[in-house]
């Protein structure tokens, strides 16, 4: 649309561009600021004298001799063992995503192809389950898990995260499977495949875009989780997000805040990469539920 009638007036263009620029600054500035600040000492990042100190690193130069310092990262990874927590996160998130997707594809496929009334009600039930605050569920687990000695293990956290992920995974994959034409698997079944063979040989090869997108969101849910991992994992199995929360308990010492700042930056970096590589999938995933359902 580039007709004369559609051309927008100059004030409107300026106004809307200014608004978008303002939004971009609000969205991005906190991240840039924290990334930059993570290479400074505490006296600069929380500068009593002048916030410009954080830009030039005045105190950092005085204390370490250079304008940038890796002390925060050294403290977080070497002294506080943040690397171990990162490893735990990797394990928990990896298995959560794999298991969620396996269960979710089977279930989502069935829901998309059933056509009976109960499939609709199962989806509604999943919606109600999705609305449950995670901490209420955790308060249900805690006592039984203590009693049966299930508390503290990574496996427990993975299983719980998979279950909490299921309602969302089912919804999303269900809407992706609805987009795959029914004729595809039905013609395979006419040719003599069983339902499972049709799924295995016809549907699985074409379902990957939907699975990748759903996998991204399962990843985010598991990676960003605080309620479940903070309450269900013991000290040794602690993942990154609760570990960052723990840093804050020990920030009375000068400089320890910078451990937390460095940890926060390190935990955000993978998410940053995720958007760079999968921006299109994330956008299509966000809209998949909305535009169709």
């Amino acid at each position: 649309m580039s007709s004369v009638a559609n051309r927008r007036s100059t004030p409107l263009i300026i106004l809307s561009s200014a608004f978008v620029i303002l939004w971009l600054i609000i969205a991005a500035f906190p991240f840039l600021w924290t990334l930059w600040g993570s290479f400074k000492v505490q006296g600069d990042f929380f500068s009593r004298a002048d916030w410009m100190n954080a830009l030039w690193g005045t105190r950092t130069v005085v204390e370490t001799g250079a304008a940038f310092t890796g002390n925060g990262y050294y403290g977080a990874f070497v002294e506080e063992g943040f690397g171990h927590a990162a490893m735990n996160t990797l394990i928990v998130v990896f298995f959560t995503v794999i298991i969620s997707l396996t269960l979710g594809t089977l279930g989502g496929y069935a829901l998309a192809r059933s056509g009976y009334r109960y499939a609709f009600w199962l989806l509604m039930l999943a919606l109600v389950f999705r609305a449950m605050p995670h901490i209420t569920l955790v308060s249900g687990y805690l006592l039984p898990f203590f009693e049966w000695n299930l508390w503290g293990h990574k496996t427990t956290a993975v299983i719980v995260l998979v279950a909490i992920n299921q309602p969302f995974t089912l919804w999303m994959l269900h809407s992706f499977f609805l987009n795959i034409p029914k004729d595809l698997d039905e013609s395979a079944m006419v040719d003599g495949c069983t339902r499972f063979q049709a799924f295995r040989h016809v549907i699985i090869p074409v379902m990957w875009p939907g699975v990748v997108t759903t996998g991204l969101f399962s990843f985010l849910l598991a990676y960003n989780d605080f309620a479940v991992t903070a309450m269900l994992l013991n000290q040794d199995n602690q993942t990154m997000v609760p570990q960052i929360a723990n840093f804050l308990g020990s920030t009375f010492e000068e400089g320890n805040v910078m451990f937390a700042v460095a940890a926060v930056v390190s935990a955000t970096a993978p998410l940053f990469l995720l958007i760079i590589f999968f921006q299109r999938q994330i956008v299509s995933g966000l809209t998949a539920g909305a535009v169709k359902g």
Partner: protein
Amino acid sequence: MPHRTFLWFILPSLMAMFLFIALPIGSVLVQSLHVEHEQVLIESETCGPFGCTPSVSIDQAATRALREARPLGRFNGLRTYTDRNHLATTEVALAWQEAESWPAFASRLMNLPFYKALAFTLSYTFIVTPLVILTGMAVALGVNGLPQLMKGATIFVSLLPMIVTPLVGSLILFWMIDADGILGATLQRLTGDPNLSLKASPVLTWLTLFVYGIWHSAPFAFIVFYAGLQTVPAETMEAAQIDGATRWQRLRYVVIPHMAPLVVFVVLIQLMDNFRVFEAIVGLSAAANASSLSILIYSDLRGDVAQFGSAAATSMLTIIGVAILLTPVLIRTWRDFNRKRV
């Protein structure tokens, strides 16, 4: 699909949801009816030259044994629900009788932990949700008018606040609004008040949390609305133009009605997510001024001695809240579903 095949396909997923979502709700219900055992007391008399005095001491071993034998605690009925930390029925009744005006009654309610948390949770849900919709819509309209080349980068930057771990996002904000942080110091300079702290007063803490909530969720609304804008039918827009509709009228009578289902979708998701506001309060260390229902449960479980009964009762009340929140949606969907079948 035959029922049997359907069952086999859905069974693993259903089992997971049953075991770890449905059963825990049952477990919460049972726990909320119980309360921790009282300590086992031994009464004994110590006799001295001036007669005997009865004394009461705690039998540590017996208490521990009892707690281990029946970890659930003793049955307490609905008393946990009505105690001071939950619905506080006696306190509310008293406040109702004594308070002379509505504000006085409200301020007495706000001293009760459950009502304080409920007030914040509801304010957060019903203030942040509409503002997220408005911000998201405004950004979507703005970005839609940008040249094609800049759209990708804009969307990339916009996704950041939404995708970042909520605890991490709120911590970043927490550091920036620190009195020595960039935003906090700038605000002090702008207002000329060297003691201004966004963390001290309840009102400012609430505002900070609302701002965080909008920052965190607006991108979601933006992306959904932006995708919706791409599907506005060009014919209708042209027809409106030919009929002489102004830009504003086209927005009001063509674009917005087209987006209505998307708005409903975003509102639904936002209501669910905002009602469980939790990580932001932990990250901003704001629990003293702004506690939510989730925070109440968390602090009960996190205390030196985990109070399962109390946490469970708050959880049940929260679940009832979620149910009330979702009822209109479920009724609406049920009607749509029936209409489609007819």
